[in-house]
């Protein structure tokens, strides 16, 4: 498949994982990400990999923990309620510094909520979710092609930093179909996992994978190591896309599906003579705070408008980055509803009326 093919978001995640060298998938069914499982159940047989339908999300993430400890590239996927169940395991993966990729195709919450698209898991994804001081790399693609490239990147980042990398999508992105070009990828096979448990095989010392540190000073030292590692990730791996910032009066902040709608509104606004730009974080953690701060310093930028499929979550990080330099407005829809272009345009016009004119 070197030519373009038409793929669903969920399928492309699965295919990208296979092409990145992932041969182990553990998961539990939940709408709207189940196509990842369906695809993996077939493809893993074709490529000689391993697909296990676990008894629960809790079991699935712990199978991931085991396979990652054993040195494999491994994937699990779920949707919001299932991701809540995985949080314990994700904390252990962070504590044991294991590389793993977790996909969250977000649905509306809280509770059982609904199956339609939402972005209400931003806090959970970027602020921890599980217990203890840790970070996950969180990537929020906005197109099928980007889902492919970022899923491959996720496996490389996971191995490179021995971290959990989350792909954060939503029901719309998971179900959406777009043409995708499977650019050749080189799995980062050079990562030698000398720490992995593969059997001692004559090694002078046995390998141990654990997240327990009984001595408080040892644990604090481990915490400091993690903090230092996360600082490197913040410096090296922050990704974002900017659009139309030249002379922009109002700047959108949005990720994933919400950013796709904003992109159309930018064109509509331009036709009306209003200059609107956008910064779209591709990594939600690390968050592009420095870039947002730089944009806030631009004299032609009068205000920010943050658009999300939630009650206002990423907007808190935007406000921290803008740090009072410019007003930051928010508009969001919930329950599985998407904001229409018209709704967003109306918000934009009101801000333009009040703060630009």
């Amino acid at each position: 498949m070197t030519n373009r093919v038409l793929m669903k978001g969920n399928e492309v995640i699965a295919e990208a994982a296979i092409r990145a060298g992932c041969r182990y998938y553990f998961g539990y069914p939940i709408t709207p990400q189940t196509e990842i499982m369906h695809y993996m159940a077939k493809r893993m047989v074709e490529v000689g990999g391993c697909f296990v339908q676990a008894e629960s999300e809790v079991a699935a993430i712990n199978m991931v923990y085991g396979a990652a400890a054993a040195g494999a590239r491994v994937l699990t996927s779920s949707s919001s309620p299932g991701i809540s169940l995985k949080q314990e395991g994700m904390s252990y993966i962070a504590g044991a510094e294991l590389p793993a990729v977790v996909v969250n195709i977000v649905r509306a919450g809280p509770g059982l909520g609904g199956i339609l698209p939402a972005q209400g898991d931003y806090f959970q994804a970027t602020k921890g979710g599980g217990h203890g001081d840790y970070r996950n790399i969180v990537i929020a693609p906005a197109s099928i092609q980007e889902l492919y490239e970022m899923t491959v990147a996720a496996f490389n980042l996971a191995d490179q930093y021995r971290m959990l990398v989350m792909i954060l999508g939503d029901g719309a992105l998971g179900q959406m179909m777009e043409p995708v070009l499977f650019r050749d990828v080189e799995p980062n096979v050079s990562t030698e996992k000398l720490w992995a448990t593969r059997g001692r095989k004559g090694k002078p010392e046995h390998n141990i994978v654990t997240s327990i540190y009984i001595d408080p000073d040892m644990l604090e030292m481990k915490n400091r190591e993690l903090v230092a590692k996360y600082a490197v990730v913040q410096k090296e791996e922050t990704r974002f896309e900017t659009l139309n910032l030249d002379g922009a009066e109002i700047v959108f902040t949005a990720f994933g599906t919400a950013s796709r709608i904003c992109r159309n509104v930018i064109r509509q606004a331009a036709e009306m003579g209003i200059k609107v730009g956008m910064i779209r974080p591709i990594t939600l953690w690390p968050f592009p705070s420095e870039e947002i701060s730089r944009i806030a310093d631009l004299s032609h930028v009068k205000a920010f408008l943050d658009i999300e499929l939630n009650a206002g979550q990423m907007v808190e990080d935007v406000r921290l980055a803008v740090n009072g330099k410019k007003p930051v407005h928010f508009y969001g829809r919930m329950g599985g509803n998407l904001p229409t272009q018209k709704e967003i345009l109306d918000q934009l016009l009101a801000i333009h009326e009040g703060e630009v004119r």
Partner: protein
Amino acid sequence: MYTNHIEPDDAKKLQPRLYIFIGAYGSGKSEVSVNFAGKLRKENPQRRILLADLDIVNPFYRSADAKSVLEEDNIRLITPNFANTNVDVPSVPGEIFSVFDDKEVIGVFDIGGEDLGARILSSMHSRFSGIAYRVYMVVNTLRPFTADAENIAKMAVELAQAARLSIDGFVDNTNLLSNTSKDELEQSYPILSRASAITGIPLVFASGLDENLPADWDGYTNQNVPLLRMKRTVLYNKG
């Protein structure tokens, strides 16, 4: 019980009163079903046309999304009880059986993806003995799992087994959505021809979005395959 019982072989000789579209996930079954129902409407202005969205697999991108278009054409839409809501219980409305019982109706069934979706046909197996019907498998050769003749043949077997119905024809719906030109349909023709040779299932028509097709393909492709020119109706976000 049915009084109009006919043998399946005889059923195939009659003018069909029910068209069933099955296929892989994302092959474009819903778009084809909606547009095919529109074609039936034009050809049968006096008949009642019914489109049943029986996709119990996928809560998104389904013919239920085309509700307003269908209503304009006076096509009755029957959807799963929870279609386009926040619940994903695969619940089938009893109303679909009206197509079997009312001879004035011409029906189109839009079935969910893969063998999983096709199972619903198996669940109403005995009903098919009373009606002339056609089962068409929609194929997009630019989708995974149906990219070549062998895989198309394999999926045809899986679908037929799950549905407990034989497949009467392929529909070539090869496309890359808005990135499509006539090239895609031209390139898929030899693949479908080979799939026909392997399976004995004929290619009954090709389909594509009107704006992507050459204006001079009037009723047929340049490979002389009957052509359904389609409007885009199944959209998720109409904002």
